[in-house]
């Protein structure tokens, strides 16, 4: 398969993940969007190691270790979220605004 085609697909995935992570204010949707970026990175690593370079062992180790730790961190965040999910606040999985809320009030650190 053509490398340019693979890279274009992975970059589209990356852009979808990037914009949705910045757009949604739902924590679950933000984490799913981040998965898109992770998937596009994996496609890049594997496609480059298969098509461009012969020695792929080191990069496979790197990818496995990194992905394991990133997924672990995501699970820790989700566990922390649901440990604090109580009857007092049903909208807890939602932030009031998106992850980076580009607003003067936000930049000034006001609540």
């Amino acid at each position, binding site marked *: 398969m053509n490398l340019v085609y693979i*890279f274009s697909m992975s970059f589209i995935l*990356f852009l979808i*993940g990037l914009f949705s*992570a910045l757009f949604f204010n739902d*924590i679950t949707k*933000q*984490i799913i969007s*981040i998965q898109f*970026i*992770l998937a*596009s*990175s*994996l496609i*890049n*690593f594997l496609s*480059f*190691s298969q098509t*461009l*370079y012969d020695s792929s062992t*080191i*990069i496979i*180790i*790197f990818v496995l*270790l*990194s992905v394991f*730790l*990133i997924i*672990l*961190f*995501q699970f*820790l*965040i989700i566990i*922390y*979220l649901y*440990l*604090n999910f*109580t009857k*007092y*606040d049903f909208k*807890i999985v939602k*932030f009031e605004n998106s*992850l*980076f*809320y*580009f607003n003067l009030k*936000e*930049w*000034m*650190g*006001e*609540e």
Partner: protein
Amino acid sequence: MDLIKNITSLINPYGTFVLLIFGIIISIFFGISKKIKFKNFIFIISVILLICSFFINIFGFILNKNFSNNLFTSGFVEVIAIAIILFFAIISIFEIYQYHKNDDNFIKIIMIFLFLVICTLLVIISKNFIAFFVSLMCFIVSFFAVITLLNESLSLVNFNKIVEANTIIKDENKNLLKPDTFRSILRFFIAILFFIVLLFFGFSILYGVTDVKNFLQLFQNIEPAGINIILSLIIISISFYVFLSFFPFQGPYISFTNKTGFSSLYLLWLFYFPTGIFALLKFLPIILILNKNEKASSYILYVLLITVFLSSLGSGLGGLKTKSLRKISSYIFTIIITGHFINMIMLISGFIKIEQFNALNIFYLILIASSFLPLVFIFISLENQQGKDSIKNINSLIYKDKFIGVSLLIFIFSLIGLPGFLGYIRQNYYLNFIITIFNNKTQLNILNNFQGWIILIILIIYTAAFLCIYLRLLIIIFTRAKKDDKDDDDINIKENRVIHYEDYKFNKKFYTLVGIFAAIVIILGVLILLEVIVPQFNLFGLRLTNTIIYK
């Protein structure tokens, strides 16, 4: 003898890690214990081990000099950085003990904290992409674990339990219990997750362009890659921009500092940001290689200048407008961190060499330890006494407690960079940089007058940004509080006790601590000033400016 020789050859840098791992293993045996005597034992053991690692780190370097293998590298700069991080660890562990010694999870906190220190040190000495990324991820995971444990008492579950027990306190003590703490923590760490995934994506493109698995190989492998590396560089830069919480991505950071407990603030400022800076500096070879190309050099200069401009402007305006001392401290810290980017500007324009650049970065850490840290000590102590985070806490402080007031002034002057204080080295560099731009431009890589003027304007904005915040603090410290102005807002309720702003009670230990820091700032500042004014001046043959900065 051979065995001893083999062991001593491993002291640098592994001796430090062995001691800290020993501390973790001891903590495991007492992990679930809630007895105060075990907590004290683990605390004392951890402090002793941290102090021992501090000396082993320096002793190992003197014994074995530089160290390098496939994964890690350790030289003079790394040893000094590790020493400063271990000093930060000693300060942080005392703070954790002060605020959390009665927590059930105290020993677990200490255990994960020691792991956090190990991960920070691994990030500093990492050389390979695998070692770097894995240690950075381990650092973030352990940082998350420590922060969530430290703020457990402030989380929503506990808040709701307290509300169920007594519905009245909900409104009165809302400043103390902070139900939004966990939401702020969550948002901050999702931002970090966003950073780490962006960095991973940047690595994937960098790998495709260069086949680099080693930071030191970047020197050899980047040149043939040429302009294709720009995309990966842009993504990695954006990821670090998010990690360091510069304008306009400062929301989660400010919210985090505003809502979390005191010890979390120390961990954030003493571990999270220094680690970010060390991680960022690992990519310096890319910048240095691209700097050889005139066009690329020009682009990098503009990107760095825009970063400094946005960060200074955002933090300066935020620091001027807010009424919270925590937020002011956060903005001050962001401005100090921005100084690393000015160092990069000086490096790529050829004003300083790589040795001076490393020394300046270390100096910024020393500035944080000597001037910013005691400033935060005072702010947090005042907040702890008043039960409220407000700029009114320092109102007419100079009249209420002369010693603390004067010490606060000394730290502020040092951060401003007035002559006679430790921070003067930084301002001296900026001044010389500007003079060189307009007098000896031929020595620098700066292409035209336009770039020189832009650098001058950005430096003025940077200086003005933190000067405004400090002047505001100074005015408030010197303003006499009017007795008639006292309204409901000036009275805080803490543990059913009404405290007025006149009640400032610091213990002797606190006075001693602040006094030591103030003395260090003044003594070193005066020595540095004498060395700048009198070129032949030295103290027992030692010149601070020669050994620390001018190599």
